């Protein structure tokens, strides 16, 4: 049975952990945010063959997190999405849409 596990990490260790994933030959599967009471719960999922590993950490509102586009270039869409829909500030995205990826009627509807 393929694995499907969630690994808790600290927000500061994000880039380091993502680099480790890259080093062990994982692909980026998805990035998503969930609104929780005191901020956001971030999930970065990586896959190796059929195994799925999800890095999980929580951040407070308006806490800036670094982009992982340097490591996984394809993450720019996920990060722009999270910025536009949740209002999580993400710095240094390789292709930053500055909030125009989704032009929603209500700004950051999931915030």
């Amino acid at each position, binding site marked *: 049975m393929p694995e499907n596990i969630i690994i808790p990490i600290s927000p500061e260790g994000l880039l380091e952990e993502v680099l480790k994933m890259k080093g062990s030959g994982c692909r980026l599967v998805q990035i998503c945010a969930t609104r929780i009471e005191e901020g956001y719960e971030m999930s970065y999922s990586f896959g190796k063959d059929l195994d799925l590993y999800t890095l999980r950490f929580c951040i407070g509102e308006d806490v800036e997190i670094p982009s992982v586009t340097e490591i996984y270039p394809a993450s720019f869409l996920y990060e722009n999405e999270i910025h536009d829909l949740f209002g999580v500030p993400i710095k240094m995205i390789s292709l930053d849409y500055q909030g125009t990826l989704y032009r929603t009627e*209500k700004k950051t*509807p999931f915030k």
Partner: protein
Amino acid sequence: MMKISKSPWLLHYDGSSCNGCDIEVLACLTPVYDVERFGVVNTGNPKHADILLITGGINRQNEAVVKQIYSQMPENKVVVAVGICACDGGIFKECYNILGGVDKVIPVDIYVPGCAARPEAIIDGVVKAIALLDRKRELKKRNAAALHKEA
């Protein structure tokens, strides 16, 4: 007498539909259902089109696109809203990004409900649109004649 209804050209635009109605609109244009037997030809160019088929509801981002397509079409034109989402928002009505049906931004002549709208229903809508196209044209002619008389 020249009748535009002999061969009206049709333009299809996907508002924010789930694809269900879009593929049914396309299915209408292909064998089995085949609206081409009514002389309808599918075109990609708004300036060639007489009938605008819109699927899906309207959101902030496609509002301008729909308005522009409508304004690019030559007079007389007919708008057909296909599917319940295009009629009034449907299951997505409560979504934060949906303004509502197509009639929020442009005038709609024919409503075809259904989720997804069945090809038979779409064909019925298109046939009604063709008849309306003739009526609009007739009306315009009569108005022009009346104006001419006054002058």
